């Protein structure tokens, strides 16, 4: 029996979402852009989902929601689409952003855009006054994630956004809220952002679908061109069933937030205290910062993470280290580098992440197994 502690990579699909997916495939399997009765059925279901998503994200304008194929696509559309849609050519991103944000931004450098990397403190946080950026009056797009996917630190995005608007009027602010949605209120107002990226499978929806919420007055150029779907902002035949299932999962996740936080933080607390007490030098990364309740990032000094992950897999614990590259090898983490970890320290860290369906007592069971494995190394 696997103990699944990799929910930050992808979590279990929620039963209501699975049901909605099956139901939508059965009922709305036509192209939502057609001129006939069956298409209209699909289109109606799609637009209903859009309205629900808009409400959940705190906007009364369904048009503010663009459905995409993934969180990565949402990040790319946000960074590239907003940059192409703006006058200036200056982008700023925090150093701990997801690769989808970083690489989207860097991809524009060869077209004359400048990309400023905003440093983070050893606690993993971006300073609210954006040091060193005071004179960048022509800043056009700023991206700071709501919560980090590796170490779980929560950024003060609202304050960062407010300050950035004072010093850089007209700046478009994007936040990648992909990891935060399970536990934190994610609305345009609550985050203070103009653009919010979400990925369905991180909160219990199916994979292959995501969305970008776009605040009023923000101009987005499409990055995928074609049939003009999504008001010309994202072409491609709609994944109607995937979208409906995602929005169903969003509703479930949004109403489950308090319980989710309580459950996962309780499991995590047991887990972390057992490990830090049971293994010499084991340290929770950014342990004193405000963190997502379900992510536990721990360094085990003297233990190669790559080795530990394989041993954990052998006893049925699924966890993660760094980010997996295309081949499956573990790559050094840019996030840990940014918070001052050496390559050696960074190679000794494992991310354990709990989920909406983590059974009670799993934190304790997992900690005992991890300690057993560590004892054999």
């Amino acid at each position, binding site marked *: 029996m696997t103990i699944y502690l990799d929910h930050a990579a992808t979590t279990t699909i929620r039963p209501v979402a699975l049901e909605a997916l099956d139901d939508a495939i059965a009922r709305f399997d036509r192209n939502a852009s057609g001129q006939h009765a069956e298409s209209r059925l699909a289109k109606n279901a799609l637009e209903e989902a859009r309205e629900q998503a808009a409400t959940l994200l705190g906007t009364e304008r369904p048009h503010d929601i663009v459905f995409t194929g993934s969180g990565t696509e949402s990040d790319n559309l946000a960074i590239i689409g907003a940059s192409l849609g703006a006058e200036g050519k200056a982008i700023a991103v925090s150093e701990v952003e997801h690769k989808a944000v970083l690489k989207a931004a860097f991809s524009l450098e060869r077209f004359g855009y400048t990309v400023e990397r905003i440093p983070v403190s050893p606690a993993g946080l971006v300073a609210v006054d954006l040091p060193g950026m005071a004179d960048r009056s022509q800043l056009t797009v700023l991206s700071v994630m709501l919560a980090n996917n590796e170490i779980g630190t929560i950024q003060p995005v609202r304050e960062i956004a407010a300050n950035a608007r004072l010093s850089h009027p007209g700046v478009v602010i994007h936040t990648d809220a992909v990891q935060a949605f399970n536990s934190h209120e994610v609305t345009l107002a609550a985050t203070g952002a103009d653009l919010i990226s979400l990925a369905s499978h991180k909160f219990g929806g199916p994979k292959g679908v995501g969305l970008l919420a776009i605040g009023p007055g923000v101009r987005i150029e499409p990055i995928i061109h074609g049939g003009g779907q999504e008001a010309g902002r994202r072409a491609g035949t709609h994944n109607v069933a995937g979208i409906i299932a995602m929005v169903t999962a969003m509703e479930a996740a949004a109403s489950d937030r308090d319980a989710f936080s309580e459950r996962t933080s309780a499991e995590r607390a047991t887990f972390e205290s057992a490990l830090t007490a049971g293994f010499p030098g084991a340290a929770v990364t950014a342990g004193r910062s405000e963190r997502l309740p379900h992510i536990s990032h721990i360094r085990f000094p003297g233990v190669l993470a*790559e080795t530990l992950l394989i041993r954990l897999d052998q006893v049925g614990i699924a966890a993660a280290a760094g980010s997996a590259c*295309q*081949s*499956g090898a573990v790559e050094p983490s840019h996030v840990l580098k940014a918070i001052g970890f050496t390559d050696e320290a960074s190679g000794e860290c494992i991310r354990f992440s709990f989920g909406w369906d983590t059974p009670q007592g799993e934190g304790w069971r997992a900690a005992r197994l991890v300690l057993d494995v560590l004892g054999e190394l």
Partner: protein
Amino acid sequence: MRALVAMSGGVDSSVAAALMLEQGYDVIGVTLKQWEGPDGSMPTAGCCTLADAEDARRVAAQLDVPYYVLDYVDEFTEAVVDPFASGYLNGLTPNPCIECNRRVRFTALLERTKDLGCDVLVTGHYARVVEHDGVFRLGMAADDTKDQSYVLHMLDQSALSKIRLPVGEMRKTEVRARAAQLGLRTASKPDSQDICFVASGDYRDFLAERHPEVAAPGDVLDMEGTVVGEHQGTAGYTIGQRRGLGVAVGSARYVVDIEPTEQTITIGTYEDLLSDGCFVTEMSFTHEAPAAGDSVSVKVRYRSDPVAADIIAVGDRWEFTFVEPQPRPAPGQSLVMYDGEFVLGGGIIVDGRRSVTAVL
């Protein structure tokens, strides 16, 4: 018992994994990521590519064994790639596969075998490990056309006791037949011949890209020191090389000397190339070291038959005399000593220049 199988994505290591399962081992498959392109991706050309890792992964899935990719890029770069380049720049002919076995596969990976919960390390090499009365010997492969004992000569008793080479007992045709019988997707995959980090298949391209200074032209000299042509960089030549010299004389000419500091290469006839022995350093032994005065057979290049030689001196610098003169061994290549079909040990040739004509 659990076996860690180094799976390259080729047919040999695929079958090795299957054979260990048949022998009752639990198996874990790993591919070493040794080399990467910009952006950390695995290379797409050469060998050990992303496609090879994918083949290994699929075979592991078919055999229903866990499979992982392990990152050895730093170790491999430092221990294999950098010395390979600097070796050529210094007029040597390095053998990167031997250095990989010596310094990555059968050291770093072997040390990790226990940490990964495994008892033995398995590869798809063609050679045999034979145990008798607690002594482990490294023998030539059952398939003499595929024997790889030369590139494994550095294995000592400690390493040999933890290594299994199951396909070394089989002929290549049997290995392919077994793979086909098991329905493995690698059954008819062609053998890789290339150096894994040289994507184009020509090491000169690799050197030119990393060290543009290798393209320094210089003189081609004959045995009397007369300039007879021009070359495009000494690193592009190997002792004994016959083709591509760009010099038209009546009979065949061979590279007999490379002087990177002078930027010259010297060419001569086959007789000029002959040597009656060589000097070797960094010797290692599979079990007990032979002594001065012993007669052994030696291979001074991968694809040649062993020849008879006498050990003249031992120590930091071993001296060998060939019973019959041999084409001059290339410094940087390995000399491997055999007793019949068993490997005694070997080291790196530092000087192959004991010229027969000079002695006469």
